[in-house]
């Protein structure tokens, strides 16, 4: 592949509140290449969203971020708010789960998009307005001129998410991060939005990061998948490979627990007990060991490093599914 667009290395995020500090992200490293679709999957509290917000500089001041995140050679960690603002929008943009909360309910759609355009580009109001219509057309909103004069409540959830994508694309970002962007939508609408994202990605040559709890979504739409557990990456592989040759027992447990259409009705789902560990008091060794079927003494003694055991396939486990290579 070509040069790296975003290189994150040894990213750590700690929230210092009352009591013990919470290590939400613990040494995460990954790369994003131009045109790539990378999915980061994990359960609530696995650190997938916090990792991305750290890269975007969107965490509250209570968060202590260390490590490195280089975007096309520019170091992002430690930038001032003004420097970050210039970087966001032009280079990286983000679409969130709830479009209703991201849009201003008292402002017309067109003005909201125009505002985003003018925040980053020195253009006139009329030009920004024109660009807003153009962007709505780009995200396949019918009658864009009319929609510009409407308010968010007049649009459906799917349409509002399209508006959010239009705002995110206002400055032609090189990387778009979709954080659970389709989670609140129906499956048929989700399919439409995902197709739109992939189409725009191909058209604009963007890289796309999908943050999701949904392994199915990652399997269907991503080139590469990262699985996170308790603030760490536990497995990473090309999507096709991950789902046909899963190595990390946690990923396997996730895959088995999803109800799927191919399964017969009433067959018990294979489940694992326990809950993700308390991030302020992580156990020694592998953080998944207390819930793992394959756990042995060495798992509780030392933390398995995330290493590329097979070409393109990284995992962090002493006793991977399917044996050692």
């Amino acid at each position: 592949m070509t040069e790296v667009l975003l290189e994150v290395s040894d990213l750590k995020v700690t929230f210092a509140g009352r009591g013990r500090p919470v290590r939400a992200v613990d040494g995460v490293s990954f790369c994003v290449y131009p045109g790539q679709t990378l999915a980061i999957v994990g359960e609530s509290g696995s650190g997938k969203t916090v990792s991305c917000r750290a890269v975007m500089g969107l965490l509250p001041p209570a968060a202590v971020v260390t490590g490195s995140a280089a975007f096309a050679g520019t170091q992002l960690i430690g930038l001032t708010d003004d420097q970050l603002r210039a970087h966001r929008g032009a280079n990286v943009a983000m679409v969130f789960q709830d479009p209703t909360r991201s849009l201003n309910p008292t402002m017309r759609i067109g003005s909201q998009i125009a505002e985003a355009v003018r925040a980053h580009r020195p253009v006139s109001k009329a030009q920004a307005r024109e660009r807003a219509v153009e962007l709505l057309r780009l995200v396949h909103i019918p009658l864009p001129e009319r929609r510009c004069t409407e308010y968010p409540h007049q649009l459906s959830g799917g349409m509002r998410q399209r508006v959010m994508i239009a705002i995110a694309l206002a400055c032609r970002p090189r990387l778009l991060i979709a954080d659970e962007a389709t989670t609140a939508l129906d499956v048929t609408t989700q399919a439409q939005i995902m197709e739109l994202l992939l189409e725009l990605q191909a058209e604009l040559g963007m890289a796309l990061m999908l943050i999701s709890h949904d392994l199915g979504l990652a399997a269907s739409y991503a080139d590469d998948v990262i699985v996170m557990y308790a603030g760490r990456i536990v497995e990473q592989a090309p999507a096709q490979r991950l789902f046909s040759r899963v190595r990390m027992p946690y990923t396997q447990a996730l895959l088995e627990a999803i109800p799927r259409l191919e399964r017969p009705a009433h067959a018990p789902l294979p489940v694992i007990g326990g809950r993700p560990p308390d991030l302020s008091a992580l156990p020694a060794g592998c953080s998944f060991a207390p819930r793992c079927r394959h756990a042995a003494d060495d798992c509780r003694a030392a933390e398995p490093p995330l290493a590329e055991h097979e070409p393109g396939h990284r995992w962090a486990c002493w006793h991977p599914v399917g044996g050692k290579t």
Partner: protein
Amino acid sequence: MTPNEPLLSVRDLVHEFHTSGGVVHAVSGVSFDVRPGETLGIVGETGSGKSTLARSVLQAPRPTSGAVMFRGTDLTTLRGTRLLQARRHLQMVFQDPFGSLDPKWVVRDLVEEPLIAYRAGGRAARRRRADEVLELVGLDPASHGRRRPRELSGGQAQRVAIARAVALSPALIICDEPVSSLDVLIQAQVLNLFERLRTELGLSYLFIAHDLALVKQVSDRVAVMYLGKLCEVGPGEAVYREPLHPYTRALLDSVPSTEPGAARTAATISGEPPSPVHPPSGCRFRTRCPRAAELCAAQEPPMRELATGHTVACHFPLVKPAGAAGQVSPAGAAGQVSSARTTLRSEEIKETP
């Protein structure tokens, strides 16, 4: 009531809301049965009316018209204490467990509360029953029983809600998106709990969710709902293998799959559901249907039984072309995709030890 008689029989249920913007046709003439020991799954998207349907079966609020026969009695004709008594054997579990649990109460009292409401036994007997059902749902009466809802995880809180529902030994539990707020591993645990209770207590469920795979996992029969009407009802396996309604096909194709090599199907249906204030004439799906013809606008398709126990409301259902003519219909093409998925699946099983 004979054993073959349905436990719940809903006929021509209509639920309308009068708003300043007009009449919302949330549920428009829905009929179905739930047999004893059976799970009927209802799948539908946002605004399909599935949650309104659940509430109108419970008479909370009462439907506009139609009959809801539960154990031989029409709930729509009952009032006051007689309705309350009839509803004792009909319980409900909602999506947000924290929303249905009083934050100030401890778990034990929360589970005892329905027993008090129905004056079921003395204080000691009620306490015993509360501890019994807590154990049944996998919670420890001694430790979890003393906690308040905020001290519980989402999965534990949903177990408490389930314990409350089973405390009065109901015959039928209506579940409205009971696991959609839970993470996948916890979701699997709660789904398994529902299954265990079904076999141990001989329960029936009316299981409502937007996730087709999830509904199929727990259901004997599946009903697909669109804009206030049922479009297809049949055995779960048949609805999945040979869907008859174009909307069911579209739903199936939109589900992202983790099967290796499963081809991603191109956008299945475009557009969005029309407003329930002005539903389309004839078939309500016709505005988004690839097969729609003039007939679909003129006439509402009646429910027809095309295979044993498999009914569809469609003028042009997706029946397999007779013989090996290889007619390239939307159904034929989609059928090939799903058989390709099955082949890959069996290879994967061989490969993974």
